[in-house]
């Protein structure tokens, strides 16, 4: 079971939260602006390992937080 620590509410089960996607970064190596937009809007890093993502504490304080998680073990690192 995945537990997430909310800065406001403390350690709560993941079911209280809504996943909000990877923390987006703009692909600076893509030179064409239109292609860069497509990448930013649609594509995912989907890494096997460390990922930084946004979660919304929908059944708690209803604020967004940033989470560092390892997708190999599904464990929260920070």
């Amino acid at each position, binding site marked *: *079971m995945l537990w997430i620590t909310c800065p406001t509410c403390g350690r709560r089960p993941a079911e209280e939260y809504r996943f909000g996607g990877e923390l987006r970064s703009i692909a600076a190596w893509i030179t064409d602006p239109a292609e860069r937009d497509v990448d930013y809007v649609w594509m995912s890093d989907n890494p096997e390992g460390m990922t930084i993502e946004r979660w919304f504490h929908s059944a708690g304080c209803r604020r967004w937080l940033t989470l560092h998680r390892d997708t190999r073990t*599904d464990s929260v690192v920070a």
Partner: protein
Amino acid sequence: MSDFIERRIALSWAEPKRTYDVVIIGGGGHGLATAYYLAARHGITDVVVLEAGYIGAGNSGRNTTIIRANYGIPEAVRFYQHSLELYQGLEDELDCSIMHTRKGLIWLAHTEPQLRAERARSLLNVACGAETVMITPEETKQLCPQLDLTGGGRYPVLGASYHPAAATARHDRVVWAYAQGAMRRGVHVVQHRKVTGLLRDGARITGVDTTAGPIHARVVLSAVGGNVSTVAAQAGVRLPIRSHPLQAFVTNFYTEAFQPIVSDTELLCYVSQTERGQMLIGAEYDAQPSYSLRSSFSFLQSSAAKVTHLFPFMRDLRILRQWTGICDISADFSPIMGATGVDGFLVTTGWGTWGFKAIPAGGEQMAQLIATGRTPPLLEPFSLDRFARDHTMADPGSTGTH
């Protein structure tokens, strides 16, 4: 059941050569079906399927084995209806039992908007060549006497759409049958051979690196499930995919026959009975992307609560086994098949929670693309460049898991 045990499958494993016409990464249903159709329909037998584990170890052996075509957009209905029809003839085509059983699928509506959505689905399905009709609560009860029409007082059944051609098949039999068909025609299938990288010549992909050395090829197809973003990144291809765990479980033996497959959009769960008499329950995929195959108690708890509202008899059953697969969920909940913009590198991916039913059509159409170099009409709507063109195939409501 007896011919399942009696008729053995002839699998013969090969030592890979250094060069092939086609290398397929991933020995699941889609990879093996593509190899089979390349050999059977196009005479292309210089093909190797490389599997990191054993064939069918991924989602081909972890899904809930439902075959149906009642989708919500024309392109998907046509594609899955073609696949459903190929499944109906697959035992003859492959000369191998896959335990294909026609069951019919009931898609419940608990609210007026759902009722209207199911009517729209029925009309669209018929217009696109699939068979789906609206049924009343009484007709639903006749098809599935175990269903509580009051939904435990909480999820009353206002009606349903009914898709009579829906079926199930034994999932690992499908994998083995395609593997046998491909092997008999000279295709090489190699297990426990992990692809560690892709070979490049300029902008072109020219083969794969494996744990036992490189293999060169004219075409490399990724039929990978779960790790496709990693494989595609080695070709410089970025995908609109997140990999999420999907869990399912079976109960112990239920003594009465439970004929149909029952699916529910509001509750996000679906129920059928296996050939062994177990009740098989699936639900939505886990919210967070993950490559962990760990199952969770919270999934069991929430799914059991849902299905016992609809089927009170299940309160007396016990949970026998629970498992997890890693599903590549595409951004529009439709598959991604075909060219990637990189020469020599194709994908069949984004199979999310809907890949098993698509194995015959996906394999047949990908084989046609590889053999002819032209994208067949059934595949065109599902190309990767649809995201850049803003022609996505959004159909989350038809997945049954979202």
